[in-house]
């Protein structure tokens, strides 16, 4: 197989023109950073500065009305003893289980619809629909599906001989979180399918043709050609979707409100409650910092494991 360089390319010095190394380094830096500049400026202004300010806030007591008051590590110490925060943290880590399922299913779906065949546009739209369904509609429809005893799913299950009694999908401590996660998957398949579809386009068809000529069947082709070629997209989806899982808020918020009790409450929901319903904005920021550190650690491990081949 043709080794496609996963390695960032060094500017090749022009033949016969040996430049002073320092000038070259300076040139590289200028070129690199000027390509980066527009995006970096926006990121700096609208992401980094607010984030830095949030980190400062995590060491204060702040209610948005009076000026923040510096209190050292008090928020972090209180967090360690906060039963609700620990519970939310557990739920959030459990939420991560969405990631591997999404990864596999959306990849398979993308491979399925990545071909010229009758009705392929229809299927793509079909898989993508959940992504664009407004949150209000999503919440209403899925609440109806999951409702007990008169929800769609329960009425269907009731017809089966081996099911007795309604299943409380959203209103029991054990099932609420998994039920919300299943909606997250429903919503995510189409989203990550698009990323994989884009990734699949970059695989030169010659590679596949070659594999077919060599007598590879579809499964072999998938494992020996498609998968390795798609690796950057897989890395991307793994990292991005696990970050999204750790930030889960919208779906649990609109579907269960974190309930029953705190059974489906995620860290970001806790942050929301502390910041905007209790006015403990400094405390909420501290929760955010902890979540950030966890995400950073996980992403680093992810990246190291997945991107062996293109990290230099």
């Amino acid at each position, binding site marked *: 197989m043709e080794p*496609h*360089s996963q*390695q*960032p*390319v*060094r*500017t*090749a010095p*022009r033949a016969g023109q040996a430049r002073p190394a320092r000038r070259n380094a300076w040139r*590289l830096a200028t070129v*690199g950073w000027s*390509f*980066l500049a527009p*995006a970096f400026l*926006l*990121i700096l202004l609208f*992401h980094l500065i607010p*984030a830095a300010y949030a980190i400062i*806030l995590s060491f204060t007591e702040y209610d948005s009305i009076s000026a923040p008051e510096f209190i050292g590590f008090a928020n972090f110490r209180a967090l360690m003893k906060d039963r609700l925060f620990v519970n939310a943290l557990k739920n959030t880590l459990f939420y991560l289980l969405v990631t591997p399922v999404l990864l596999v299913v959306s990849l398979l779906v993308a491979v*399925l619809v990545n071909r010229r065949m009758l009705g392929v*546009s229809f299927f793509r*739209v079909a*898989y993508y*629909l*959940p992504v*664009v369904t*407004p949150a*209000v*509609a*999503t919440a*209403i*429809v*899925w609440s*109806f*599906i999951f409702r007990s005893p008169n929800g769609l799913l329960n*009425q*269907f299950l009731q017809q089966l001989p081996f099911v007795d009694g309604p299943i409380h999908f959203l209103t029991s401590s054990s099932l609420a979180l998994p039920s919300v996660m299943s909606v997250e998957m429903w919503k995510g398949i*189409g989203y990550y399918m*698009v*990323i994989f*579809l*884009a*990734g699949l*386009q*970059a695989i*030169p068809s*010659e590679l596949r043709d070659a594999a077919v000529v060599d007598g590879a069947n579809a499964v072999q082709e998938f494992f020996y050609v498609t998968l390795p070629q798609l690796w*950057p997209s897989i*890395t991307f989806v793994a*990292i*991005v979707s696990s*970050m999204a899982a*750790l930030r889960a*808020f919208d779906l649990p918020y609109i579907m269960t409100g974190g309930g029953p009790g705190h059974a489906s409450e995620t860290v*970001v929901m806790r*942050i929301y409650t502390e910041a905007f319903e209790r006015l403990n904005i400094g405390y*909420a920021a501290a929760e*955010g910092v902890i*979540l*950030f550190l966890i995400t950073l650690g996980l992403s680093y491990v992810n990246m190291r494991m997945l991107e062996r081949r293109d990290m230099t």
Partner: protein
Amino acid sequence: MTLRDLKVRRVITKALLYAVMIVVAIYTVGPFVWAISTAFKGPGENVYAFPPRILPEEPTLSNFVTAWQRVPYFGQYFINSLLIAGGSILINIGASSMAGYALARLQFPGRSLAFWIILSTMMIPFQVVMIPLFLVVLQLGLLNTHLGVILPTAVTAFSIFLFRQAFLKLPKELEDAARIDGCSEWGIYWRIMLPLTKPTIATMVIFTFVSSWGEFLWPLIVLRSPRMYTVAVGLAYLQSQFSANLRWIMAGSVLATVPVLIVFLAFQRYFIEGATAGALKG
């Protein structure tokens, strides 16, 4: 194996593939079909019937008319949302592709650090930075402007990262050839590399459109004039303490979904096997 056996096998495989695709489609489309059918139902119908009735008994368009009329300036909101989405898309694709290119294909000091700094901005939940972000927007004088809605989300680590991954996949030979031909760095990016990431550009158009189209909270926080609100804010007017008609909510949701679907349909055609592969032959 005869030729006929082979043909039969291919037909069976194809049928199986379609069967799988249809099952997945029912799972993903089912809820939306229910939403659409509710939007067309008359006021006397039980929308919660089991088994669900897809075809309305008293079909009507009145829910759409009412939804449209009840939301003040709904038409204006569509225009606002289109402007915001359009602006976001332009900025996002321009800036993010350049940044992604630099991170994937250029060697320069601080590259790895810059990548991680950018990536780290995806790890902070919005609820935490909302107040600080509002203060920044205020300082920049962007309060009550559409630019104040666009800029904070225009460039995201997500899109930079996605472009980086796309550029990583491109073969090095292309670049080398261009360099030998005396192409400038900008020329390599603009004329050679960027056109090869068309599927990624299409992806970003689709994603940016969806996310800015669905924005609800941030526009409400930055904007002060109700005329400047977005479609997603408009939808909220259909569900309040003085109004909660399921059919209107569904009709409004369906209306709000149409532009997003059009954008998806228009851009998904870039995801056709081999559409860009030819160029890679170099």
